[in-house]
């Protein structure tokens, strides 16, 4: 990567090279990741459900999502007559921009973060709340009652679950003493009985709240009520077809990856792992392994639980998660104060 960067830095200048490598690298990887994750989801679902999942397209169906993507590319793009055309067309483009930006902020290794910012965590939390805007635009512009309901549910849900996520993140920030993600990983870890442990071990409650929060923010079951199939047909994307629909899929799985990576960075030690100091390339590998672990647990939950009802979802966030997260934050502050 750095050799490539040096090569490009000649004609493009340092910033240009970073931008190019970053955009191409991230886009390329995210595309691959979406294809992989959808395949993984179908295989996980299959094996949980006593069946095999995709088998015929490539060995064990590995090319299945490639076929799906190509098919969606070649599909007619329908724009229903009664839509708010501009907003309708803009929504699928907007939906994964915030996620893309967040992806560039996750530190991949000791010297590998596309954008290393002192307040990276704050920016991530801000940006990840923006996806819902696009979802609401999609729902509203579709001029379909199911879509509007889905969009409304989505807004209410994200507003409710942003807060516990933020509070959980703050607990970690208190312990780590930084909002820079890179430093958060590289700073000396807290010690428990003399052994350095990731933040997830000292902040287990925050980790659980964070996990529940990101599951809700990515509209994953059991919190998938904005697109609840059995109630709202397709929710906010009911009226989208072809590639526009694929964009929402793309965004959902990218979001899973990015938020999973954020969780891995915050609670599971990010890119740190055995021998990572000696072999820096292991950093991204560790990060991805931890990320996919988080993502796998999200999939596991999806194929196991029924869906919550909307009011239950709301009261779960406001009446349980937020007080708990607040209490956790206060407790963290008190413990830190006592230790100091």
């Amino acid at each position, binding site marked *: 990567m750095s050799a490539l960067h040096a090569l490009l830095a000649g004609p493009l200048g340092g910033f240009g090279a970073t931008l190019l490598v970053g955009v191409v690298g991230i886009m390329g990887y995210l595309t691959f990741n979406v294809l992989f994750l959808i395949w993984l989801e*179908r295989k996980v679902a*299959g094996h949980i*459900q*006593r*069946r*095999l*999942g*995709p*088998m*015929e*397209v490539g060995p064990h*169906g590995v090319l*299945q999502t*490639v*076929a*799906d*993507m*190509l*098919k969606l*590319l*070649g*599909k*007619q*793009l*329908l724009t229903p007559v009664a839509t708010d055309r501009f907003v309708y067309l803009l929504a699928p483009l907007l939906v994964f921009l915030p996620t893309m930006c967040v992806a560039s902020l996750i530190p991949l290794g000791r010297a590998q973060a596309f954008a290393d910012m002192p307040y990276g965590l704050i920016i991530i939390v801000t940006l990840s709340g923006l996806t819902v805007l696009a979802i609401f635009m999609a729902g509203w512009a579709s001029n379909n009652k199911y879509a509007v309901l889905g969009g409304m549910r989505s807004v209410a849900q994200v507003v409710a679950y942003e807060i516990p996520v933020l509070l959980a993140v703050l607990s970690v920030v208190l312990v780590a003493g930084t909002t820079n993600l890179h430093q958060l990983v590289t700073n000396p870890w807290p010690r428990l009985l003399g052994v350095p442990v990731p933040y997830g071990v000292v902040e287990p409650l925050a980790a659980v709240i964070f996990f529940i929060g990101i599951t809700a923010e990515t509209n994953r079951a059991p919190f998938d009520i904005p697109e609840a*199939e059995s109630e709202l*047909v*397709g929710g906010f*994307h*009911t*009226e*989208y*077809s*072809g590639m526009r*629909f694929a964009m929402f899929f793309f965004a959902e799985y990218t979001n899973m990856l990015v938020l999973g990576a954020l969780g891995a960075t915050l609670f599971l030690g990010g890119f740190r792992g055995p021998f990572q100091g000696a072999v820096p390339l292991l950093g991204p590998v560790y990060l991805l392994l931890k990320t996919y672990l988080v993502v796998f647990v999200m999939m596991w939950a999806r194929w196991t639980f029924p869906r919550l009802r909307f009011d239950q979802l709301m009261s779960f966030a406001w009446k349980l998660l937020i007080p708990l997260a607040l209490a956790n934050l206060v407790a963290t502050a008190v413990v830190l104060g006592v230790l100091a």
Partner: protein
Amino acid sequence: MGVVTPADRELDALAAEAAPFARLAMVEDVLNLARANSLWPLTFGLACCAIEMMAAGASRYDLDRFGAGVFRPSPRQADLMILAGTISRKMAPVIRTLWDQMPAPKWAISMGGCTISGGPFKYPGEYAISEGAEKFMPIDVHVPGCPPRPEALIAGLLKLEEKIKRGRRFGRAG
């Protein structure tokens, strides 16, 4: 060929205009291959056959192996309409609307005797059903049976895949 009428000339001009700008046969082939292997059916059942259709999607038969297990509830996202069950006269206009809502390219499988010809519910003077789906929409593959077994539906699906790979749709040679 006899006399070339103005109408014929107009048709020729139209054909020339409508011909693709560039013929990308390879791309078409690849796309057709992808389409054949990614047939997302519409979540849509009418009667008894729908149960066998669901059985085909369930563990033992597992349509997902062929990439056809992604049942989409919205017609906008479906490629394949599996007409499973009796089409009543009250339902026929609804089915037609659903079919029109699906984006091209799209295919339809008629599953069971009812959607082929009215099946066991057809008799002289019947008033309740539409005698077969082909009265109001194109059908690519017929799967006979009452209801057909899930294996039969899978066989029908594979036939449809063959048809798509050859690049033929709605009976028109490519």
